[in-house]
Structure formats: structure tokens, C-alpha cells
């Protein structure tokens, strides 16, 4: 992990570091050579760490007041909102924090897609990220069940019923997940347990994610390998710390806007009605961050195939480093990929929109086309593009386009032709 020798100055420091090399680790993290051309899209790793810590701290404090019981959960959440000192603030930070976490993770993922950060030698970083993303979805889903409102209850019913699509053993699995014959108190208590556990699993995976990142070092907007440390890099501290800190402040302004001005806009009014197993709300929608996958589920008319399509849509991302056959990382030098990238972004946004609409008529048709295109992008476009696309010449170093006056590929090309 450490690519340079470090010797503490003090005698005690040396004695301690010889026995537990924490100071070496701190030195590695401080001096970690970072490409100097990282733009603000690279600040979301730090922002995500902030989100995780925020969720853990607010979650721990909420757990001191919440009661995981079907008869008391709804009331205890209202108790937090009305009676507990600053309970409203802590709960609103936690609930909106989940949305902010997903906002940041989607930007982080699409950053990787644009700049090809998932490609060799960073496949393990990418796969660890996908696992973290899956765990985030599980944690968010189970957390949404805990207030025991109508959306909690029916969301839990619909999502756990996805497993009933499995032939033969499906029903047994669903009863096992529920601990009964419907979503009820045993379901609530185990969801609370798992909701408490998962963030710490994510924390462990984040450590691995960063560890795996520190082996090859950061990708960068130009997407070429850099020598480190060299003139192409700057030490993590203070350069990246300050930049990440500034981006985090901007992010916190958005976060605070939701918490203080529209704390319920991302939630659903039906969740302020206590769970009722006899009445299904007229229109069940998941939280916004799961809508694209929900649209894929509903666009397939067969139950089992719908579930398979939805899971594949997520798992296909893990195979991305091998589906994308192009050796060029950054979309800056891939004129065709850049266009397909933006079509994919639009496709996912469209899926999110139709996921929130009733599954009928034109919406259903759009959902089907968008679902089809999503898979075509990964299974057809990306593998073929690597062979067919005429990419632009790469600069020799990340300094070259900067000194040429513009980081744009066209400028580099012009400079080369002048030579």
C-alpha cells in the first residue's frame, strides 16, 4: 500500500510505528499522489463518505428513540418528530440524507461511465462499488419500511414478493423472509436489525474500495496512465482536501435546502398513514432513486422475466469492464461513445420518469422501448463500439493539453498537426 518509506521524527512515534504502522498509513494518505487535472466530478467520493457518516450518526441517534414493533413503530416515529429534542431535525436529515446519498452515488457512477474509470486496472474498484450500491439499495429499502406507514408496508410487500417469482421454492423463501404469511411484526424487527447492520458492511467495503483505488491511483479526465509521483501529480493534502472540502460545502447547501425547506418533497404523503394490511394505496411508487429499475420490472408482462430483467439491469454493470471493449478510457477521446453515453443518461432519466407514472398506454410503451435500449447499450453498442470507433489521438501526458491551452481533444489534435 505504501509506495514510499516513512520514518516518524519523534522517538515515541518511531517506537509506536514499528509496532502498528498507523503513522505510515496517515503519511500515505496525506502524500498520496493525485492527478493534478481532476475536475469537480471527482469530488463525489469524499461527498459519499460524508453521506455514509451522516447516515450512521443520525441513524444511531434515531435508534435510541425508535421502537421496532408493528403496534408502536408508527407512533414512535411521530414521537421522534414531535417530542424528542431536535428529533424532527435528525429524522429529516436521515430521510433526506438517503436521497442525497443516492444523488451523489449516481453522479459518482456516471462519472465513472464517462471517463472509463471501470476499465483495467480498476475493475475491482468498480465491482466493489457495485456491491456497495446494491447494499445501499437494500439499506434504503429496509429503512423505508421502519416508519410502518402505508408506503412502508406495501413497498415491503411488493419488493419481498419479487422472490415469489422463483419457481418451486419462491413461496417458501417469501414466508421465510416475512417470518409469517404476510409482512408483519417479525418482518419489521428483522428489517430493523439488517438496516442497522448494512451501513457497517458498507463502511468495510468503502475501506476496500479506497484501498483498491490506492493501488493504481486515480483515473483522470484525460484517462491516460500517469507516472506517480511526478509533475503530473499533486499530494492529496492539501490540494485535493481543499477541493473536496469546497465541493462538500456546495453539496451541503443543497442538502440543507431539502432538510429545512422541503423536507417531505422526496417522500410520499401516504407514508403518514399508518400501515393497513387490508387497503393498498391507489398508486404504489418506490422512492425516486429506485424508479428506473421499477420501470424495467413493470415493462415486462411476465412476472418471473420482469424480476430477472430488473436484477440483470443492475448486475450487468458488474460485467461492464469486459463488455466495453475499447482500450481508450475517457469519453473525451471517443466521439461516438460520448454520444451513446448521453443517450444512456437520457434513457435512464426517461425510465425514472415512466417508473413514477401508471403502467399503461403510452407510458408502458415508452418504458418498453427504454428498457430495450438500456440492455442494447451494454450488450450490443459497447462491445461493437470498441472495434468500430475511430478514436482521437491521446496526449502523451496530462500536462500536454493543459500547456496547449485547452484540455479538449480537438486542441491537442490541432497542436499535433502543427508539429
Amino acid at each position, binding site marked *: 500500500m505504501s509506495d514510499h518509506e516513512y520514518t516518524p521524527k519523534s522517538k515515541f512515534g518511531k517506537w509506536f510505528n514499528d509496532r502498528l504502522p498507523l503513522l505510515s498509513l496517515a503519511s500515505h494518505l496525506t502524500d498520496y499522489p493525485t492527478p493534478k487535472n481532476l475536475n469537480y466530478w471527482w469530488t463525489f467520493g469524499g461527498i459519499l463518505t460524508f453521506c455514509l457518516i451522516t447516515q450512521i450518526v443520525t441513524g444511531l441517534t434515531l435508534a435510541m428513540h425508535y421502537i421496532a414493533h408493528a403496534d408502536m413503530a408508527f407512533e414512535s416515529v411521530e414521537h421522534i418528530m414531535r417530542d424528542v429534542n431536535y428529533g424532527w431535525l435528525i429524522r429529516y436529515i436521515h430521510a433526506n440524507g438517503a436521497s442525497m446519498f443516492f444523488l451523489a452515488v449516481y453522479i459518482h457512477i456516471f462519472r465513472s461511465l464517462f471517463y472509463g474509470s471501470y476499465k483495467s486496472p480498476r475493475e475491482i474498484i468498480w465491482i466493489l462499488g457495485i456491491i456497495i450500491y446494491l447494499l445501499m439499495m437494500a439499506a434504503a429499502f429496509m429503512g423505508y419500511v421502519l416508519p410502518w406507514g402505508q408506503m412502508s408496508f406495501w413497498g415491503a*410487500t411488493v419488493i419481498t414478493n*419479487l422472490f415469489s417469482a422463483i419457481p418451486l421454492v419462491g413461496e417458501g423463501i417469501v414466508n421465510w423472509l416475512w417470518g*409469517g*404469511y*404476510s409482512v408483519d411484526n417479525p418482518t419489521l424487527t428483522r428489517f430493523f436489525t439488517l438496516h442497522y447492520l448494512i451501513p457497517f458492511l458498507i463502511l468495510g467495503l468503502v475501506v476496500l474500495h479506497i484501498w483498491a483505488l490506492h493501488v493504481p491511483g486515480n483515473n483522470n479526465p484525460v484517462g491516460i496512465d500517469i507516472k506517480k509521483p511526478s509533475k503530473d501529480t499533486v499530494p492529496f493534502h492539501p490540494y485535493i482536501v481543499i477541493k473536496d472540502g469546497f465541493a462538500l460545502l456546495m453539496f451541503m447547501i443543497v442538502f440543507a435546502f431539502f432538510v429545512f425547506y422541503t423536507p417531505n418533497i422526496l417522500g410520499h404523503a401516504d407514508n403518514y398513514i399508518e400501515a393497513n394490511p387490508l387497503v393498498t*394505496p391507489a398508486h404504489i411508487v418506490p422512492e425516486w432513486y429506485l424508479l428506473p429499475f421499477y420501470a424495467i420490472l413493470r415493462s415486462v408482462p411476465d412476472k418471473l422475466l420482469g424480476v430477472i430483467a430488473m436484477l440483470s439491469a443492475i448486475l450487468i454493470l458488474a460485467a461492464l469492464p469486459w463488455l466495453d471493449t475499447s482500450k481508450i478510457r475517457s469519453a473525451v477521446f471517443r466521439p461516438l461513445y460520448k454520444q451513446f453515453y448521453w443517450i444512456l443518461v437520457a434513457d435512464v432519466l426517461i425510465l425514472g420518469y415512466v417508473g413514477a407514472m*401508471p*403502467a399503461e398506454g403510452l407510458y408502458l410503451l415508452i418504458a418498453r422501448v427504454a428498457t430495450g435500449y438500456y440492455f442494447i447499450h451494454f450488450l450490443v453498442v459497447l462491445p461493437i463500439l470498441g472495434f468500430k470507433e475511430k478514436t482521437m489521438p491521446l496526449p502523451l501526458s496530462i500536462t500536454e493539453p493543459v500547456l496547449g491551452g485547452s484540455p479538449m481533444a480537438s486542441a491537442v489534435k490541432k497542436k499535433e498537426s502543427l508539429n
Partner: protein
Amino acid sequence: MSDKKPERREFLFTASYAVGAVGVGAVVWPLIDQMNPDASVKALASTEVDVSTMEPGKTITVLWRGKPVFIKRRTSEEIAEARAVKMEDLKDPQKDEDRAKNPEWLVMVGVCTHLGCVPLNDKGDYNGWFCPCHGSHYDTSGRIRKGPAPTNMEIPKYEFVNSNTIKIG
């Protein structure tokens, strides 16, 4: 190596692994099985319902094992409609006679077989039930006619204890 007879040591390895696997399984199983429905949940297995005050055409919903059960006293038109359906028009072919032993009374689990929502009474294209979640239409016998649900709504085990009381479960 391949020509050699299995040695004493290899046998010991295999035996150790096998015993170890059984041991791990024996320890893991209680940890998995504790999540299955417990004795108190299973004890609530049956519910008795008084249906003496129900008019024809009326549906009531009762809770059985935490799930809604629809009890519908069907009108003669609804029965005729259910019985007139051809088997080839059904996604999950089942005769109405097999679903409602006493044609006037339809007793079924009011849970959509797609993803578990509660369908709405007297709605949909087939005058039966309509699921608001993902748009499954059921007929007056609770059979799936249109939409993503794979099967008909489930008929629970039930019996008439007397002419006024139905026991579900």
C-alpha cells in the same frame, strides 16, 4: 500419484471435511430456520366468519394469517358470467365450479398473485377485481384475465361450519 491406492491420510482428510461440513450445517440451520414462521404465527391458522347478514352482491374482507380474504356473495348474473367463460380464454385455466363449491359464495385470498397488493372490488374490465399496483384484471371468479399476474387468486381451505358461518383455514 494417480496409480496409487487411496492412502490412509487422504481418507482421514475426506472424513474430516465431511464431518466438518455436517457440523457447520447443523450450526447454521437453526440460525436460518429461526426466521421461518414461528409457533405463535402458525397458531393463528384459522378464522371463523359470520356471513348471515350479507346481501347478494356484497363483498366483505376479513383478515386471515395477516392477509385479506374476500368473501363474496355473488349475484346470479355474476355466477352465470363466471361459468360462461371458455377455458381457452384463461391464462390459468380453472373452472368456476372448482373455485366456488357453493356457487353463491366465493371465498378467496384477496392478494394479487403478481406482487401481493390487495385488488379492488367490482372494478376492472371483467367486473371482478382490479389491482391498482400493476394493473391486473380478475373476473367474477377471481381468475386472472389481463395484466402481469401469473395465476388466479388463491382459494384457501375453508368450510361452512353451519349455514351462517364460514371457517377459513
